[in-house]
């Protein structure tokens, strides 16, 4: 139980948290803006990683590989959107179906369950080897932070456009959106594509960082994303009202999640128990608003409008 060990593990936790922050922001778009719990992401993360690693191994440029990973993620989102809007399958089940299908797809992309990439032979953007003893601009914390800021800036711009506003209206009130001429099906598909595109990008970064892509790397991604969203909201919801800041809060939530995880590991908790712990913590936090409404709210007796209506 050497505190120094914990400290030396923290930069790695922060870097991982930042990479997962991009996934969490993707999940924020479906869960918070579109009001859909999209389970596709558990498969998409690996798809992004697999596409990126396989393309790099076949000699492709890093930028092309990462963009392809993002595009592959968007395709996964398109599949889920298609299942939901065109085939009328409830969103959660649509996500589960795509996720299951992706398991085979991911195996086919990689050819086996695990593909490693050597940081010495390939020009990776991020790697856990760059955590120490490299110039700051090569440090994954710096590189991913820059990427994250770019992602947030693009999303901030997009959700202020006509299309972005249509997407927000769709998630908030579908009846109203349709009455204002918005095709809510198109909006949902678009939102799912953007979300899964970001998760694919995040998977590409994660597999580079850890030096391999693995068929199981996305297991529980939705839960980690939700945890990040919940932590970010719990801490920042009162001070961050701007949309860009809310996204940053999600990323910080993700970093905190990985820091806490590191502490739990340092405390000697059986690592096999970590997923169960995460699930319990997220379940309790998701229940809080419900409990609050059920047991701690004053009865609302007011009927009709206010006197100054």
């Amino acid at each position: 139980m050497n505190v120094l060990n914990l400290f030396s593990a923290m930069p790695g936790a922060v870097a991982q948290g930042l990479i997962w922050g991009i996934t969490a922001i993707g999940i924020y778009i479906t869960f918070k803006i579109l009001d859909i719990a999209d389970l596709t992401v558990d498969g998409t993360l690996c798809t992004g990683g697999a596409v990126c690693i396989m393309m790099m191994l076949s000699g492709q440029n890093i930028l092309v590989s990462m963009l392809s990973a993002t595009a592959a993620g968007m395709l996964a989102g398109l599949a889920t959107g298609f299942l939901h809007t065109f085939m009328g399958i409830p969103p959660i089940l649509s996500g589960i179906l795509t996720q299951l299908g992706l398991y085979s797809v991911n195996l086919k992309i990689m050819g086996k369950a695990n593909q490693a990439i050597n940081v010495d032979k390939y020009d990776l953007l991020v790697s856990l080897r760059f955590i120490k003893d490299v110039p700051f601009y090569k440090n994954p914390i710096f590189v991913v932070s820059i990427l994250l800021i770019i992602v947030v800036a693009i999303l901030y711009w997009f959700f202020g456009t006509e299309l972005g506003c249509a997407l927000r209206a769709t998630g908030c009130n579908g009846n109203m959106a349709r009455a204002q001429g918005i095709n809510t099906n198109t909006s949902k598909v678009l939102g799912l594509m953007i979300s899964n595109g970001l998760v694919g990008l995040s998977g590409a970064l994660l597999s580079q960082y850890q030096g391999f892509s693995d068929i199981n790397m996305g297991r529980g991604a939705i839960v980690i994303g939700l945890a990040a969203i919940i932590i970010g909201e719990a801490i920042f919801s009162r001070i961050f009202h701007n949309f860009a800041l809310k996204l940053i809060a999600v990323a910080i939530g993700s970093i905190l999640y990985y820091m806490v995880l590191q502490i739990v590991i340092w405390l000697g908790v059986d690592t096999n128990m970590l997923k169960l712990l995460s699930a319990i913590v997220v379940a309790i936090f998701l229940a809080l608003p419900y409990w609050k409404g059920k047991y701690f709210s004053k009865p609302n007796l007011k009927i009709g409008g206010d006197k100054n209506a």
Partner: protein
Amino acid sequence: MLEMRHVTKVFNPGTVNEHVALKDFSLTLEDGDFVTVIGSNGAGKSSMMNAIAGVWLVDSGEILIDGVNITKLPEHKRAKFLGRVFQDPRTGTAATMWIEENLALAKRRGKTRFLSQGITRKESEEYKELLKILDLGLEDRLTTKVGLLSGGQRQALTLLMAALQKPKLLLLDEHTAALDPKTARKVLETTEYIIKRDNLTTLMITHNMKDAIAHGNRLIMLKDGQIILDIRGEEKNNLTVADLLHKFEAASGEEFTSDKAILG
């Protein structure tokens, strides 16, 4: 203007819950008509609105607006012809978005949405002026989330949104029913003002016979998915609640049994 030709809609056909919502329903509206619609629960008032708005597709018959056949058009594609205000104040607006963002969404009804700005500075100024006519102080709260407004404020805003892109037809589905009497009166005044200002062709469902008589140039009463009374012009101007009850009994062969509609 609006033509509904022999429209029929049956819910849950072939089951014990089978319900004929509209039965060979025909209605023609002239330009500038302001038609009030009354009828007891389940008479088909809301079904008539939903058929026009495209919430679901009808089983048979045709619906035309200005000669354009919209019978098979999905809801979002009909939106450019229609302005809608709903019974529940929460239905017509997006609660988590600002007042001005809601207006901007309505401003783009029927237009292709792409990557230009969702709302411009110039628009904000425009909306500020528009909100002043409501006299609710909303012009100073452009960036307030709509979810924080009262039911009456939300209905007034929805009305403004419905008229923002001048619709060919304004559909009001008991839009004052969920409000207290004083607020309802105020929203109804605003409704009358906007309809006159823009000369809008309007269909207004109401649960209140007095309102149905006091507003509009034509009154129709529905029962079992059909029009059983159609009163217009001079006859409508001289109508009283007692007349209406009498006519209802004569037309349907039974007593009108909604106290709320008679007393309201």
